[in-house]
C-alpha cells in the first residue's frame, strides 16, 4: 500500500452496493483522474464496514475520516476538498446522536468504540479481491506456521486452549470437534465450511466472505491439516452471488500462490477447496441436512449419532464449521490461544459478530467481546431506538431464538446466558423491536418462517409448528381462547423435546420466550381482545369521533361495503358487523375523525 499517499476505501458490502457504491467508486476514480491524482491516491473497494445504516460509506486513510450516505455526485467534492486541500467535507461526516458532535474519525464513533474486530479484522480494510492485501495483513502466516512449526495435534491443542466455540449457533467447542474428526481413521476426510446463512436478518457470514474470503480459506486449510483432510468444501447460498464471486477469485489466487494445491509450504500437505451451492432451504444450515444437500439429495437431516465427524459427506469423516468460526482461526494461531481466551466470559471466549437490525439507529454489522451486555450493544453501539421510541424487545438467534426484554438488558451476552434466558446465540442476528411491535405477531412471524422452512421429515416439526402458527394466527385475529394459551405451551414443549433436528428443537423458542416475557400481551389479545401495539388488524376497529366528524359523507361514499351511515352534516357511525377494516374511511377523512382503536 506504500506507493500511494492516500487511500479511499469504498464499502463494497451488499447494502452499500445496493445503494450504488459502484458508481461512487467510478466517480471517485474519474474525479482523481481529472485532477491528475490517479498515481497518488488509490480507490479500493472493500468488504462491509459494518455501519450499513449510514451507507454508502467512504473512508479516507490516513486520518480514518468516515463519510456517510455518500452519493456519486459527492465524489468531486471529496477529491477537491479532502484530497487536494486537506479539508474534511463536514456535511458528509457522521453526527453522534447523543453528543450532537461531528465524528471526524471512524474510531471516535460510538458505533465502533465498544467493538473488537477479530473475525471482521479485515472487512472494510482490504480489497477482498486482492490476495496481496490479505497477505500484507499477516495473511497465510498462520497456515505457514501450522504446517512448518506444529504437528496437527499441537494446533488442535491451541484451538482447544483458546476456548473457541462454534459460531453457527450450537456453540460446540471447535478444538474438540477437530480432535474427534482427526482421530477417526479413513482414507478420505473432508472439511466443510457452512456458508448457508439462512437466518432472516443475519448477514455476518456474507460480510466475511465478501470482505475477507482468504481468512476462511486459510482456516479451512489449517482445519484440513489438523484433521487429515485434503479436501475442503464450501456450502454457500446461491442467493449470495457476490460472496460466491469473491470466494472463487480468492480460491484461484490462493492456488496461484501455492497456498492451496499440492505440497503447500513444502510440507507435503495437499489441500483444495470446491464450492457447492445451496438452493434455498434454511434447514440446510443443519450439518446433516447440509451434507445431504451437497450429495445432491433433499436437505433432510438425519438422526445423530453418527455425527458427521464419523459419517459425513459421502459417508466419510467430515468436519463442519461455519464461516465466522473459521475467520477466528488464523488470529488464534497468530496471537496465541491465551490472548484469545483473555477476551470474553468464562465459558465463551473471544468475540461474536452480530447483525444489528430492526428499530435501531445504527443498523449494521458489529463485533463485540463475549460478555458485552445487550444494553451496550443496543444503546451504545446501536445508538438506541429509532425515532425516540421505547425499547421493547430484542430478538436473538433468529427463528431458533427468543425475544428478550428490558429485564435482560444487563445480561452479558454469551452462549449460556442467552440459553438460560430462553433464547440462544444462533448465528448472530439481533433484531430490535419497539413499542409498535406486537409480540404475538412477532412470534407468528417466526413460526410462519419455520412452517415454510421445515423439511417435513418429522411429525412434530411438520405438523406441530403448523398448529402453533394457526393458534397464533387465531389469537392475532381476536379469536383466541385461554385454552389456546395452554395448548401453545404444551405444544411448544413437546416440539422442542421430540423434533429430529435443531430446527424443530428450537423453533418454538419465539413462542415460549414471548409467552414468558410478554404474557400480559397474550392475555390482552385473548381476554380483552386488544393489541397494545395496534398491529393486529383483527383486534382493531375503526370508529368515528362524533366531536370531530363534520358529516361531510366522504367516508360513507368511499366505504366499499356501505358500513357507514349518518345524516349529512351530522356525526356518522361505522357498523362494526359490516366493516371489513380496509381503512378507506380513514384515508378519505379530512378531519381526522376516523380513529383506529
Amino acid at each position, binding site marked *: 500500500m506504500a506507493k500511494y499517499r492516500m487511500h479511499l476505501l469504498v464499502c463494497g458490502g451488499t447494502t452499500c452496493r445496493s445503494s450504488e457504491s459502484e458508481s461512487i467508486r467510478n466517480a471517485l476514480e474519474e474525479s482523481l483522474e481529472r485532477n491528475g491524482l490517479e498515481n497518488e491516491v488509490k480507490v479500493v473497494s472493500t468488504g462491509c464496514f459494518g455501519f450499513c445504516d449510514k451507507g454508502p460509506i467512504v473512508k479516507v486513510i490516513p486520518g480514518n475520516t468516515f463519510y456517510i450516505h455518500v452519493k456519486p455526485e459527492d465524489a468531486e467534492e471529496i477529491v477537491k476538498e479532502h484530497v487536494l486541500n486537506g479539508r474534511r467535507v463536514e456535511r458528509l461526516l457522521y453526527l453522534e446522536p447523543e453528543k450532537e458532535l461531528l465524528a471526524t474519525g471512524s474510531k471516535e464513533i460510538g458505533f465502533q468504540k465498544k467493538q473488537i474486530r477479530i473475525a471482521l479484522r479485515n472487512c472494510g480494510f482490504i480489497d477482498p479481491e486482492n490476495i496481496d492485501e490479505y497477505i500484507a495483513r499477516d495473511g497465510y502466516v498462520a497456515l505457514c506456521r501450522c504446517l512448518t512449526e506444529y504437528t496437527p495435534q499441537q494446533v488442535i491443542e491451541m484451538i482447544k486452549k483458546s476456548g473457541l466455540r462454534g459460531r453457527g449457533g450450537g456453540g460446540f467447542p471447535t478444538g474438540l470437534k477437530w480432535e474427534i474428526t482427526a482421530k477417526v481413521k479413513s482414507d478420505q476426510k473432508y472439511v466443510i465450511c457452512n456458508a448457508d446463512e439462512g437466518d432472516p436478518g443475519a448477514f455476518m457470514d456474507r460480510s466475511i466472505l465478501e470482505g475477507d474470503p482468504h481468512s476462511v480459506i486459510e482456516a479451512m486449510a489449517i482445519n484440513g491439516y489438523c484433521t487429515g483432510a485434503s479436501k475442503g468444501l464450501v456450502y454457500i447460498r446461491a442467493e449470495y452471488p457476490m460472496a460466491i464471486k469473491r470466494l472463487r477469485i480468492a480460491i484461484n489466487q490462493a492456488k496461484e500462490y501455492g497456498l492451496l494445491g499440492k505440497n503447500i509450504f513444502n510440507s507435503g500437505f495437499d489441500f483444495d477447496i470446491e464450492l457447492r451451492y445451496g438452493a434455498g*432451504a434454511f434447514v440446510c444450515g443443519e450439518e446433516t441436512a447440509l451434507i445431504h444437500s451437497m450429495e445432491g439429495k*433433499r436437505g*433432510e437431516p*438425519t*438422526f445423530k*449419532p453418527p455425527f458427521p465427524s464419523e459419517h459425513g459427506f459421502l459417508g466419510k469423516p467430515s468436519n463442519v464449521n461455519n464461516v465466522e468460526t473459521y475467520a477466528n482461526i488464523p488470529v488464534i494461531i497468530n496471537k496465541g490461544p491465551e490472548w484469545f481466551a483473555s477476551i470474553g466470559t468464562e465459558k465463551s471466549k473471544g468475540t461474536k459478530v452480530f447483525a444489528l437490525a430492526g428499530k435501531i439507529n445504527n443498523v449494521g454489522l458489529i463485533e463485540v467481546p463475549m460478555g458485552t451486555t445487550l444494553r451496550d450493544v443496543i444503546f451504545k453501539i446501536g445508538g438506541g431506538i429509532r425515532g425516540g421510541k421505547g425499547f421493547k424487545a430484542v430478538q436473538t438467534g433468529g427463528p431458533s431464538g427468543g425475544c428478550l426484554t428490558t429485564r435482560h438488558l444487563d445480561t452479558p451476552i454469551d452462549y449460556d446466558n442467552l440459553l438460560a434466558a430462553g433464547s440462544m446465540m444462533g448465528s448472530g442476528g439481533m433484531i430490535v423491536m419497539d413499542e409498535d411491535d406486537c409480540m404475538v405477531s412477532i412470534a407468528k412471524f417466526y413460526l410462519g418462517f419455520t*412452517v*415454510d*422452512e*421445515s*423439511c*417435513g*421429515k*418429522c*411429525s*412434530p416439526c*411438520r*405438523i*406441530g409448528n*403448523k*398448529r402453533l402458527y*394457526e393458534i397464533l394466527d387465531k389469537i392475532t385475529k381476536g379469536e383466541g381462547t385461554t385454552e389456546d394459551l395452554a*395448548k401453545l405451551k*404444551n*405444544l411448544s414443549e*413437546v416440539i*422442542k*423435546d*421430540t*423434533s*429430529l433436528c435443531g430446527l424443530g*428443537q428450537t423453533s418454538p423458542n419465539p413462542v415460549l420466550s414471548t409467552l414468558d416475557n410478554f404474557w400480559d400481551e397474550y392475555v390482552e389479545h385473548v381476554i380483552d381482545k386488544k393489541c397494545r401495539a395496534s398491529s393486529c388488524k383483527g383486534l382493531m376497529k375503526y370508529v368515528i369521533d362524533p366531536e370531530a366528524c363534520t358529516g361531510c359523507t366522504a367516508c360513507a361514499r368511499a366505504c366499499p361495503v356501505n358500513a357507514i351511515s349518518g345524516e349529512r352534516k351530522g356525526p356518522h357511525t361505522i357498523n362494526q358487523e359490516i366493516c371489513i377494516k380496509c381503512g378507506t374511511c380513514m384515508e378519505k377523512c379530512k378531519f381526522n375523525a376516523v380513529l383506529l382503536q
Partner: protein
Amino acid sequence: MELVKLTIDKKSVEVEKGTSILNAARKVGIEIPTLCYFNLEGMNIENKPGGCRICVVEVQGRRNLAPACATEVTEGMVVKTNSTRVLNARRTVMELILSDHPFDCLVCPKSGNCELQSLAHRLGIRDIPYQGEQSTYRKDTSPSIIRDVDKCILCRRCEMMCNDIQTVGALSAINRGFMAVVAPAFEMNLEKSPCTYCGQCVAVCPTGALTEVDNTRQVISALADPTKTVIVQTAPAVRAALGEEFGLEPGSLVTGKMVSALRELGFDYVFDTDFAADLTIMEEGSELLDRLTRYLSGDRNVRLPILTSCCPAWVNFFEHNFPELKDVPSTARSPQQMFGSIAKTYFAKKLGIDRNNLVVVSIMPCLAKKYECQRSEFLTDGNPDVDFSLSTRELANFIKLANIDFNSLPESDFDRPLGESTGAAVIFGTTGGVIEAAVRTAYELYTKKPLPRVDFEELRGLEGVRAATVNFDGLELRIGIAHGLGNARQLLEEVRDGKSQYHAIEIMACPGGCIGGGGQPLHHGDASILKARQKALYEEDRNKALRKSHENPYIIQLYEEFLGQPLSEMSHHLLHTQYFDKSTQIVIE
C-alpha cells in the same frame, strides 16, 4: 461380540453393541410403540428415518427425547419408556399426526388393519385437541393401486421400498414442510410413472394412503348374472396365506377350505392357476431347451440367458428400464394369462358357450395382475382373457362379506380339467420355485432320463440373489435367481453388459416371491410370516403325487386335444406374447 449393559424402566438388560433401544427393550418384554419404523429381518429391508417420533424415550443425560428405533444403546445408559414426560410427548405427537389425517376410518379400506388406527387405540386417543388445516392432494387411481395421500403420514416406507429395494423410482418424497408427501414426479398419476404395480408400497403402507383397487363388486355382479358362467383360478401363493386373514397360524395351508369357500361364493367352476403353471413350464421349459440347443450347436444369435416371464411387475420393470433387452425374456405368458387364454378357448368350447359369456376371475397374491389382465394384447375383440383379478386380501373380505365361517368349512378339491396340477406348479409361489419346476421338466426332456432327485435345495432360500449349477447329464446349466427388483436390476445389468454367466434366470418382483406379493395379507414387517408361507408351499409340493409339470395328465390331454405340442403355432398364438418399450423417450422437436 461386545456386550453393553443398560437399564430400561428399571430393568437391566445386556445386549450386543449396536443394538437399538427399541430392540434392547423388546428383550426384556418392553414393547415401545413405533410407526414409521419397519424391518423385515434377515431380508435387508429396513426403514428407520426416525421421522414419526412416536417411539421417543427418555435417556438420562440427554436434553431431548430420543427415538428408540434409531438410538443405539451405550454402556450404563438409563432409559425410561413410560415416564410422564414420554407419555405426554408421545400422545401429543400422535394427536398432531391425527390432526393432519382424515377422520374417515368408518369407510377407509384399511380400517381394522391400519397401523395408525391400532396405535391411536393403543395410546388411548379420544379426541384431537390440535385441529387445523389438513394437507390435501389429488386422489390417484391406477389399474392396480389407489393413492389417497391425504392419509399419508410420511413414514417413507413406500419410498424406501420403491427406491432402495425395488429401484423402480416411481415415488419420491416431494415438496417440503407441511405439504411434503410421497408422490410420483410432478404428482403425475402412477399410471404415467414408471410404476410396475408390484404393490410393495401397498404391502408396507401403515395407513390407507396406498391400497389396492377393489374389484370385488364387479365379481359379485358377474356371479349374480344368470347369463354368465363364472370360473375362478387361484394362484399358488394364495393358499399359503389366506388362512392368516381368518386367524390361522402363518403357513397354514388352506387349499381345500379355499376351494369350498369359492364354491359357496357361487363360482361355477373352481380351477387352479397351478394348472396353467404346469403349462407355463411346458412352454417356457421348451423355449429354454430350444435356445440352449441352438446355442450349443453354434447359433450365436440366440439370446441367453433366458429370463422367466411369469411376474407381471417384473415384465413392467424391464419394459420401462431395459427396453433394449425386450427380446431376452421368455415369450411365455404368465400362468394367469395362459389360464385365461385356455379357458376362453379350449374350455369355453368344451362348455359350448361364447367367450363373452364366460367370466374368468383370478385370485392372486399380486396387484400387478390387475394391470396385466387389462393389457390390450390379452384382449380378444375387446374381451379380456381374464376379466377380474382379486387379491388374497380381497378374497378374504369377500368370504367374510358372504357370512362364510371359513375355519369350519370342509376341504374339497378343484374342478377338472383346469384344476389339476403338480407339485412343480405349487412352488411357483416362492422365489426359486419357477426355475426349480422348469429344471425338473427340462432335465427329463433334455436328458430323456428320469430325475434322480426332485428336490433342488440349491435353488431354494431367501437370499436376494442366488446362483446354482445343475448338471444336465454332463451339461452344466448355470442358473441365477433374484427376487426384489433391485436384485433383479443387478442381474439385468450384467446381461445388458454381456457379462452374465447364466443360462437361465428366474426373477420375481416381490421379496420372497409371490408369497410376499403386494396383494397378500399384510405381514406388518414380520419376516417369519414369509418364511412360514414358503415352507408351506414346499410342504404342499412334497405331498403331491405328481411333482413334475410334464406328468400332469390334463396338460398332456390339453396338448393332445388342442395345442399339439409346446411352441406349436397354436401355442404361440394362445400362450406367448411380446413386450414393449415403455421407457421415456426424448423426442427432438
